[in-house]
């Protein structure tokens, strides 16, 4: 039909087109709502109705007590799926282009692979590998292919050859002094790392982008005040403040995430503000405003997408900082001792370093590789998502 009698712009009867209409939701938002609402209901049910000791999912089977951090984690995963992964599928041409650009940076591809392992391991690992359990008798088991002097080990799981206890596949990366399996510890540590990464990133991005755009578009006094506030946030010695809070009130993983995210968005806000200001000078923004588009629409459809590449890069480079901070605190013995994080493992093996280095080295290397991977990824994303480079190359 459209081909027979193409509609022409000068025949549109604008009076007829109703101005009041339903806000039409994109498929992404529909999906997000459809999944986030049930999650919210479960969370409310857990929080308000179930008593504290009953694991959330007991009525349906598994004895998994979903905590606040877990709810947040699932929520951020949904955001990630609907607003980052799904759009990549919706726009295959663009995705292919990004991938082509990204592929040129080989270390980054390897990094992405490693992070995918950590991601999948962190989400599904705990369902297949049970949490490491204390078993004093099987402490200091060496990793597979390695051996340790028999005298250090009370019970050797593997063979003893010439007074040396050999490692076994039962504990591929050995065990700690308390007999906890290092490999299982690392897999469960991935979950913690992913939780830290995803939740902080979401908080930082939400607060930073909102603050930055509001500041840029409000201008004048409001802008001045907001930016001075950012100055203060940025001058805060976060680690020290966390130590103080920890000292006075005590703090778990949730508090850690909250405090560190609460002081990390300053840079993002500053960046988004300056980007919004420079973008609003661009002619396509003027053209858009002249079309009658609202400020919200301009920000949502043009400013944020155009700032996204740099924001994503910046966030990618923030995550390693959080992981490092958690590991540092755990190492000092100040972390949340109830969680099996990599830092806890490193700290557990510290005193036995001279004869059982694997307890420190294995999680240490995993931590190192993860931080390295995030850095390579950030670097490659900066190049791949750069719209100017796009204009030149394609």
């Amino acid at each position, binding site marked *: 039909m459209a081909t027979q009698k193409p509609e022409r712009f000068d025949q549109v009867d604008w009076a007829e087109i109703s101005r009041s209409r339903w806000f039409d939701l994109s498929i992404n938002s529909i999906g997000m709502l459809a999944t986030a609402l049930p999650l919210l209901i479960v969370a409310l049910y857990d929080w308000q109705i179930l008593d504290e000791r009953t694991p959330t999912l007991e009525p349906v089977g598994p004895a998994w007590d979903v905590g606040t951090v877990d709810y947040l984690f699932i929520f951020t995963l949904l955001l990630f799926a609907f607003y980052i992964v799904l759009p990549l599928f919706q726009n295959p041409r663009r995705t292919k282009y990004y991938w082509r650009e990204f592929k040129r940076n080989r270390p980054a591809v390897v990094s992405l692979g490693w992070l995918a392992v950590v991601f999948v391991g962190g989400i599904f690992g705990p369902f297949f590998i049970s949490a490491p359990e204390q078993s004093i008798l099987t402490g200091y088991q060496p990793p597979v292919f390695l051996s340790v002097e028999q005298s250090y080990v009370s019970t050797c799981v593997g063979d003893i050859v010439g007074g040396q206890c050999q490692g076994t596949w039962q504990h591929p990366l050995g065990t700690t002094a308390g007999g906890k399996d290092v490999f299982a510890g690392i897999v469960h540590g991935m979950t913690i790392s992913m939780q830290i990464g995803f939740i902080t990133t979401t908080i930082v991005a939400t607060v930073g982008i909102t603050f930055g755009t509001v500041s840029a578009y409000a201008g004048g006094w409001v802008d001045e005040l907001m930016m001075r506030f950012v100055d203060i946030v*940025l001058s805060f010695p976060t*680690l020290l403040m966390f130590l*103080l809070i920890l*000292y006075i009130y005590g703090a778990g993983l949730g508090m850690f995430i909250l405090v560190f995210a609460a002081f990390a968005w300053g840079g993002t806000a500053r960046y988004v503000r300056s980007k919004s200001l420079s973008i609003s000078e661009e002619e396509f923004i003027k053209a858009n405003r002249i079309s009658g588009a609202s400020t919200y629409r301009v920000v949502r459809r043009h400013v944020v997408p155009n700032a996204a590449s740099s924001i994503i890069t910046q966030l990618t480079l923030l995550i390693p900082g959080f992981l490092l901070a958690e*590991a540092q605190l755990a*190492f000092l013995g100040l972390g949340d001792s109830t969680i099996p994080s990599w830092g806890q493992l490193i700290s557990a093996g510290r005193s036995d370093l001279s004869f059982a280095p694997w307890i420190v080295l294995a999680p240490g290397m995993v*931590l190192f590789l993860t931080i390295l991977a995030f850095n390579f990824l950030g670097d490659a994303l900066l190049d791949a998502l750069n719209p100017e480079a796009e204009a030149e190359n394609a």
Partner: protein
Amino acid sequence: MGFGRYVTARVLWAGVVSLIITTITFLLVSAAPNPSVQEAATQAALQGGDPAEAAERARELRGLDQPLYVRYMDFIESVYTFDWGWSRSRSQPVTEALGQGLYYTAQYSVPWTVLTVLIGPLVGVYSAANMYSWKDHAATGFAFFGYAIPNFFFGIILLLIFGVWLEVIPVVYNTDVAVFSAQNAVQLSIPVFVLVTGSIGGIMRVSRNESAEFQNAEFMKTAKAKGVSPIRAYAYHVMRPTLVPLSTTLVGQLLALFLGSSLLVEVVFGIPGIGRVTYNALIAQDTNLLLGSTLAFTFIAVIGNLLEDLVFTVLDPRISYDDR
């Protein structure tokens, strides 16, 4: 507005920031139950006295029965007059304890900062000048390695290698040696190395990316057209503008590392510096000392940010002091 007025404005602002952070610290502390009051109450209960009365007395003794604003004024006054109280665990004034810590912290911080500031930008510009060659990749690889490896982890490994296996450095820092002695240099070399590797990466990346932009700038073409030699072009025309954006991240990156890593590095290597003082205060539940070191780090951070601002305006002739 002249430079003088600009500096005054920035210094005043730094004062405001420090005041705000101090206030938040005060609020954090005053909102929590005081451990010494609880202790007194427990003590009284154990000895058969009235815990409530004992708590009241302890509170009175520490001036906690005063209204909040009076306590606040007292607190602020003592903070800014450096009357930071008595360290229970170390049996000496807090300022003295911090001073002693600072003495050791400075011994590795000064060489670390100097080396980072000197080497970082040079390697960055060199890397940009040889962009995409093996030299660039090697420098980038090193930068990433230093950036990514957690300082404390790196420290432990080096300590294991050089302290435990090779025995060239003492496993625990020896405070008896003179500051300017070969022995001190040897035992500080590993912590300084660890910190420099950690900090140089970020600086190098920034200076590489910024100078890459400047070496393709139009004015480099002008310089070339004037007959300027490549070395002079890099030394004058690339290095100088690179320092401007670098100055905005340099201090910040060093500070972040200082606040985080000094604690870790001192704990790992057993250096009795200000970071370790903080750590011990935390372990020993020494509120005054912990508060003191928090404030000390805060002031260092505020002064660092102030310096960063000032250096930036000095370096960039295009910034007019009217702007902010």
